[in-house]
């Protein structure tokens, strides 16, 4: 039987006596049928006054599936609230059994969630409380990290040495290609931006100063940090979060091994060791990018560019850049590991942890960068 030939489900009411009405169901009650919305039927039903009993009749249905019991369940629930009896002996036996089953366990009082309308004030309060909880979590995590580092210094920390090397491989050499690409391009961009202005005064040679100082003091450390927070910080959060979901962190704890020492310490150490090296490499790449633009497009020789850079950039500038990258590394590792360790126990929580790790570390990085730059300016270095 094709859908076109079947008559879609029909509902009609036949009053029997003053307090009884028969509800006649005919046609097809399967998936494809177009059936009158149940709300309308309930409205029709409420039009009968003094109703005490509804007789359900459905002897000659052309076919039915879950739509029929789902439809009737709503009618049952309505009748229950109106204290109307329902007689379902006229239904197909299968439908009777299913309806009985669906109504066997009554809805648990208070189980259904109702959408709560919260006032703006309540939302603000909740946000503040969440913020406080976050801050408390951060402090606790920093404290635990310090304890782990103290244990490391006392040579009491428990972790696998091989883990450190694996983390170093992951946070160092494996990141070189992306750091190369981004730093080279940033150096290139810096050179172009500066060149347009400087060329107006015929001072193209000072592009070397601009690119050198900009990269070494600022962009090298900053771009490496942004790359590493997306690459490694997120990975830390996701790894530790998944271990949390899988009870692996619980298992470590009940083995008497501190997860802070075993999992967090190697990751932090690896990133803190590797970031300054990556930063130094990024500085070099940035200056190379600047040189490529300047030499090829602005009539400055490579030797001139090299000499100018050497004049402009001294060791202090490198020191500031490296110091920044060290701070950024600690921040990225903290945000990543903390979000992973505090992760909830579901797949979506792992995603949230990774997102929060990246967002947090980028905010931390930019704030820390501003503070350090400000301090350097005040100190005149």
């Amino acid at each position, binding site marked *: 039987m094709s859908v076109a030939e079947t008559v879609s489900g029909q509902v009609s009411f036949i009053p029997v006596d003053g307090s009884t009405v028969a509800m006649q169901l005919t046609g097809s009650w399967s998936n494809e049928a177009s059936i009158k919305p149940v709300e309308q039927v309930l409205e029709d039903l409420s039009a009968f006054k003094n109703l005490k009993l509804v007789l359900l009749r459905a002897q000659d249905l052309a076919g039915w599936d879950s739509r029929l019991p789902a439809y009737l369940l709503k009618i049952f629930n309505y009748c229950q609230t109106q204290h109307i009896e329902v007689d379902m002996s006229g239904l197909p036996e299968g439908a009777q059994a299913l309806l009985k089953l669906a109504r066997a366990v009554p809805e648990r009082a208070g189980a259904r969630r109702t959408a709560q309308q919260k006032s703006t004030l309540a939302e603000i309060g909740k946000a503040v409380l969440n913020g406080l909880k976050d801050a408390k979590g951060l402090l606790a995590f920093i404290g635990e990290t310090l304890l782990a580092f103290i244990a490391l210094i006392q040579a009491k920390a428990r972790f696998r040495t091989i883990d450190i090397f694996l983390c170093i491989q992951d946070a160092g050499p494996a990141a070189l290609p992306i750091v190369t690409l981004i730093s080279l391009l940033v150096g290139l961009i810096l050179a172009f931006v500066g060149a347009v202005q400087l060329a107006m005064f015929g001072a193209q040679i000072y592009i070397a100063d601009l690119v050198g100082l900009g990269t070494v003091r600022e962009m090298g450390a900053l771009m490496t940090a942004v790359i590493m927070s997306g690459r490694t910080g997120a990975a830390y959060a996701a790894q530790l979060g998944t271990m949390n979901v899988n*009870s692996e962190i*619980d298992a470590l704890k*009940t083995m*008497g091994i501190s997860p802070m020492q075993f999992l967090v310490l190697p990751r932090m150490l690896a990133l803190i060791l590797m970031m300054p090296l990556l930063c130094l490499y990024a500085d070099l790449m940035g200056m190379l990018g600047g040189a490529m633009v300047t030499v090829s497009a602005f009539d400055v020789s490579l030797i001139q560019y090299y000499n100018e850079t050497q004049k402009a950039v001294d060791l202090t500038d490198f020191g500031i850049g490296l110091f920044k990258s060290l701070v950024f590394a600690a921040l990225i590792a903290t945000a990543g590991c903390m979000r992973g360790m505090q992760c909830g126990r579901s797949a979506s929580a792992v995603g949230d942890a990774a997102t929060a790790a990246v967002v947090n570390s980028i905010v931390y990085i930019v704030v820390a960068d501003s503070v350090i730059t400000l301090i350097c300016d005040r100190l005149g270095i």
Partner: protein
Amino acid sequence: MTSAMNTPHITVTNLTMAYGDFLIQRDLNFTIDHGDIFIIMGGSGCGKSTLLRHLIGLQRPAQGDVFYDQQDFWHASDEERVRIIRRIGVLYQSGALFSSLTLAENIALPLGEFTHMNGREIGDIVSYKLALVGLAGFEDYYPSEISGGMQKRAGLARAMALDPEILFFDEPSAGLDPVSARLLDDLIVSLRDTLGTTIVVVTHELASIFAIGTNSVFLDPDTKTMLATGSPKKLLAESSDAKIIQFLTRGESNANKSA
């Protein structure tokens, strides 16, 4: 092995468990003796696994104490607590194997951290423990490469690595076929018989409860406290509490009564 049977191993007094304001269970009092196979049972969502987390040091009680032998677990110093924890082994519901390590590395981890054995000796112990749970030859597999039931058995091998005094099992037969579940039950009993290990099992598998349980506690989600403690068989024979009888008979006693 050396400790006398029928002396208290774990004592729980007035334990109240809660997540913040949300009460899970209150006023729990029971004793797990040396050599017991102790069952924590009750309907779904009554706090069985939460009780386990309190016993193994993963969650601090809202109130009350847990004693290991005579030692107060939650009021001990951190180092003391770690020392107690090293005497226990836990098999988690999912196995909780470290996914980045092979089975052999998983089992070798506690051995490497807490014993002075060399690599070869550790390797021998690892092979022996894997053989004990029927996984001989799977040393170099990663947890993701074996089935769920095998992961669980490997988890047990890791839990047994340091020959713990007490072994905790969280739903050991969940996700196992009946034959494997039965084999695991047999393994639990023989661990108790041969090594004198005290066993604590969270489960609601009736077959297991009656087959292996020598002592138990029954938690009720409605009244949020324990209803009884004692041998499951004895509880079935003597309890007058309808909820316990219903649980231990899969609700079939009601049908009998009404028939």
